[in-house]
Every structure is written in structure tokens, then in C-alpha cells.
């Protein structure tokens, strides 16, 4: 299944990808479009991606998770295109024999995905303004400053 999709994300096919009779726990994270960002009302978002790199980096992250939690199996999908408030932008589904690995693998993948996968969003605000989201301009948003040397 492609990691990037222009269609609404459906959970069932992702769960089918990772469930198996010996896996007793599934942890899922869904990222949804919120109605506000930094104090401004949001109407919707346009997501774009650098496709081949987004796929490659996501596979790399999932492979890292398999290294850390060998019993876990993880499926990921990220939506691209125009989304409105409440739409699912990203889904991470991790299944494992026990719940601890499922939670940890799920959390790892979403955290790394947000730091590393080349996806961008342009926010349409209620006040008519439009803005590319730049996490490096928000306060306290971590080490990635858009500089090759720090990356």
C-alpha cells in the first residue's frame, strides 16, 4: 500500500496489514486537522510531499522501529492534498504480541515521521490568510532549524 494517499485514510486496510493471530495489541495514532493553530482559526490545510523521499524516509523509520521492537509490525499512511478540519492527515498502526511494544513502536514512528518525512502543509485561516507551517519558527520546537549542518 502506498504511504502517501490523496484519498481519505481508512483504518481497516492498515490494520489488516499488521494484524496476525500472534499479535495481541494494536496501538494506533491518528493525526487530525485541528480548527486552530497558534491562536488562529483554521479552515483547512493543503498537504504536499516530496513523494519518493517521503516514501523512502518512512520506510527507513519503520525499519528502525522493527529493529528496536522486533515483534512489532507497523503500517503508516499520510494524506496529501486538500484537507478540512477533522480529516485524518496521518495514521500509524503498530501491532505486536504485547501492548508495550505496540505503544512504543507507534509513538516512535509518529515522532520520527514528524521530524523527518518531507511533507509540508499550507494553512488556510478563517481570516483569509494563507501560510506555510514552519515548525522552526514556532517557539521551542526542537533542534531542526532548516540547516543542513544541524540536520
Amino acid at each position, binding site marked *: 500500500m502506498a504511504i502517501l494517499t490523496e484519498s481519505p485514510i481508512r483504518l481497516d486496510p492498515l490494520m489488516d496489514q499488521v494484524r496476525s493471530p500472534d499479535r495481541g495489541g494494536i496501538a494506533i495514532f491518528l493525526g487530525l486537522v485541528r480548527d486552530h493553530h497558534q491562536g488562529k482559526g483554521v479552515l483547512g490545510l493543503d498537504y504536499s510531499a516530496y513523494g519518493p523521499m517521503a516514501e523512502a524516509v518512512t520506510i527507513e523509520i519503520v525499519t528502525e522501529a522493527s529493529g528496536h521492537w522486533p515483534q512489532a509490525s507497523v503500517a503508516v499512511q499520510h494524506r496529501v492534498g486538500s484537507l478540512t478540519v477533522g480529516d485524518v492527515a496521518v495514521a500509524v498502526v503498530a501491532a505486536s504480541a504485547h501492548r508495550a511494544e505496540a505503544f512504543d513502536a507507534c509513538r516512535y514512528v509518529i515522532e520520527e515521521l514528524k521530524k523527518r518525512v518531507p*511533507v509540508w502543509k499550507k494553512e488556510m485561516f478563517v481570516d483569509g490568510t494563507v501560510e506555510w507551517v514552519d*515548525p522552526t519558527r514556532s517557539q521551542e520546537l526542537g533542534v531542526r532549524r532548516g540547516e543542513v549542518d544541524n540536520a
Partner: protein
Amino acid sequence: MSATVTVRLRYLARYAELLGVESEELALAAPTTVGDVVTAVRAKHPAASQLPAKPLCAVNFRQALWGDPVAAGDEVALLPPVAGG
């Protein structure tokens, strides 16, 4: 006379809007690096002065460092800070 390498440039998201182009080819004197490619982009596009000093770059879909070599046919991408999820 020195050889040239032709590379494919990809400008993503906000950078594509800034430069008014998503993709183009550039020929540079060999040997060349990621830093050299970005310098050539600046020379060609006045708007590139608004890029950060060292924008995040990828060569062939893998994140690259400033001094990494670039060969003929490589795809060099300039990436704004990522904001997925």
C-alpha cells in the same frame, strides 16, 4: 576546458513558490557539491536570497550534507523545514 555535470533541481513546497519553479536542470563545473549547487541556484534566482543560509537538501531522495558530492544525473532537492503529520 573543465567537464560539466548536469543535475536536476527540485524545489519543494514554500521554496517552489518562492522561486516560481518546481523543477529545473542546471549545469555546473565538475566536481561539484551540494553547497556548489545551492550557490548556483542563488546566482540564477534573485528570490533565492530569501532561502536560509544552508537550506535542508537531499540528493537522490536522501538527506545530504553541505559538502556531499553531486554527480551528473543526480536529483538535488531543496526542502523547507518539514511539517507533516
